[in-house]
């Protein structure tokens, strides 16, 4: 018997328990990369702020009677500057209260962004996942379709839709969605293809887990993070696109306020009161800044490289 006889310590059974393993990540630790990114925190704050503003805007648009707040014309008090008594953000050329108009316009912008993103995510994910998972001829056909659509200019599509339907939010939402889903589909397809090769998917197949269950239990949860990040960028892109379309008159029609349309109308009064154009412009800029920096922060959380360490 030597000093090395293995009977001098208990057999291997509890070996992994000898030294405690690293404790699991708490929510605090998981959020740490996000909190460390000061811009992301600012983004989350901005996004939250504009969501609240949008809720207020939606309320005044839909509660009967409250809409007076932003359509009431006070022709004696036109083009008041911000911080005027009774009108914190001033009034426009018809004497309408800029504060309520911007709140309502924010609601319209964010609603459009959300609607477009939900619609394009839905179709993009289904078609992208189908292409990636099925492969072969299905993939080639869908991919060709995706590439074709992705090359379409949004404005052209919007003009077609506005011509076919009538100018308004519905046409705008459809027009942007028709192009945007392809963006989602491309990324989802690439993700599914790389996930499909992962050993844990192969292990599930070897265990006899049916395909639909693999998609529901492994593919979808592993794509949620990226989808959330993409969604925040896409809402921002849509807000800009909607504003652009409204600026050239293809978007929401008066009296429905929209930020792009407010800039468009305000530019006629730039010499008298530049704020009527600057305020909605700043709102768009801040919404987009908030969503993009929030997206960056979310990416830090979901980045698999950070997850490993």
């Amino acid at each position, binding site marked *: 018997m030597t000093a090395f006889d293995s009977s001098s310590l208990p057999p*291997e*059974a*509890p*070996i*992994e*328990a000898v030294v405690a*393993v*690293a*404790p*699991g*990540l708490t929510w605090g630790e998981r959020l740490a990369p996000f909190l460390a990114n000061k811009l992301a925190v600012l983004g989350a704050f901005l996004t939250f702020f504009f969501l609240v503003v949008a809720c207020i805007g939606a309320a005044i648009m839909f509660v009967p009677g409250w809409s007076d707040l932003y359509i009431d014309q006070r022709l004696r008090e036109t083009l008041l500057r911000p911080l005027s008594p009774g009108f914190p953000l001033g009034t426009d050329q018809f004497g309408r209260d800029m504060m309520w108009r911007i709140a309502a316009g924010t609601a319209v912008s964010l609603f459009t962004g959300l609607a477009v993103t939900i619609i394009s995510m839905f179709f993009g994910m289904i078609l992208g996942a189908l292409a990636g998972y099925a492969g072969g*001829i299905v993939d*080639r056909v869908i991919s060709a379709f995706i590439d074709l659509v992705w090359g379409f200019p949004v404005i052209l599509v919007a003009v077609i839709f506005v011509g076919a339907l009538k100018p308004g939010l519905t046409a705008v939402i459809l027009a942007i969605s028709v192009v945007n889903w392809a963006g989602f589909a491309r990324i989802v397809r690439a993700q599914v293809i790389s996930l499909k090769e*992962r*050993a*844990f998917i*192969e*292990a*599930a*197949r*070897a*265990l*006899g*887990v049916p395909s639909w269950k693999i998609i529901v*239990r*492994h593919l979808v*949860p*592993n794509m949620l993070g990226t989808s959330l990040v993409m969604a925040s960028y896409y809402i921002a892109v849509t807000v800009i696109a909607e504003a652009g379309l409204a600026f050239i008159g293809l978007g929401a029609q008066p009296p429905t306020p929209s930020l792009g349309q407010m800039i468009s109308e305000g530019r006629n009064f730039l010499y008298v009161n530049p704020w009527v154009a600057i305020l909605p412009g700043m709102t768009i800029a801040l919404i987009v800044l908030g969503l993009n920096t929030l997206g960056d922060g979310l990416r830090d959380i979901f980045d*698999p490289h950070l*997850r*490993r360490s």
Partner: protein
Amino acid sequence: MSTEPLLTVNNLVKRFPVATDFFGRSTAFVSAVDDVSLQVQRGETLALVGESGSGKSTLARLVLRLIEPTSGSVRFDGQDVLGSNKGQMQEFRRKAQIIFQDPFESLDPRMKGEVIVAEGMPDSGRSKSERKARVAELLDLVQLPADAARRFPHEFSGGQRQRLSIARALAVDPIFVVADEPVSALDVSMQSQILNLMRDLQDRLGLTYLFISHDMSVIRHMADRVAVMYLGQIVEIGPAVEVFSNPVHPYTQTLLSAVPSLIVGGTPPTLLDYEAARAAIGACTGSGSLQAVSGQPDHMVACFGEDAWVRHRGRM
């Protein structure tokens, strides 16, 4: 013994397309597995050894029908695997399992230990508490602490993760397990733990292993029989003792002599010269066909000529 082998593979071929024309039709192929035949007896460990590109991992996936072969047949436990319908495949998947190389990759990062282990268990026929009890039993079997059930993959060490994937494979009570480089991603001290565990489980559960590795020492420790693969073909197959001490094929000889040596027990392999190696397998009919080594009926070597000898051994 004259019982039927658990696994019989005949003339298995897998070609992958490497070029396609405008219409997506394949115009050029590479043969990852090129006419492989082998048998695995019940309760034994057959090791596949070879370097990258030898086709050993592709062969493993073909055997489990995770990918479809170009041609050939696979018989498992009296069942024609490639001709099985959906129900028969479910039955096959329960009996034949796989453990992967990278313990990071093979576990879904978003699932807790208990969900991972229970993944292959049938949904019906077991109550929730019965499933929990079974998971606990399996964790115990692979020597993981009970709280492993509530932890995520990133909270485990590499060795523990590999134990978890072994538990997942064992959850369906398999009789056959393919282990694809199960210890290559692990540190030396973790490697010995997993190898011991796999041998213990084989003894306790009567498992049959198809064990894949590029590490000759690991193969020596695990294998009853060894098959050496090179460019999609088996060039030498036989009892581990014979292949390791009397390698005949020039490629096997090169593999064994390339391993950086440590001071070890036992006898080093006898490296034959060309004439002696050719003499050992007698007259060869056609290149590539497997010939028995004289005096060792279970030890088969692929025919080779001078060119193959020079390619692997450098000189005659």
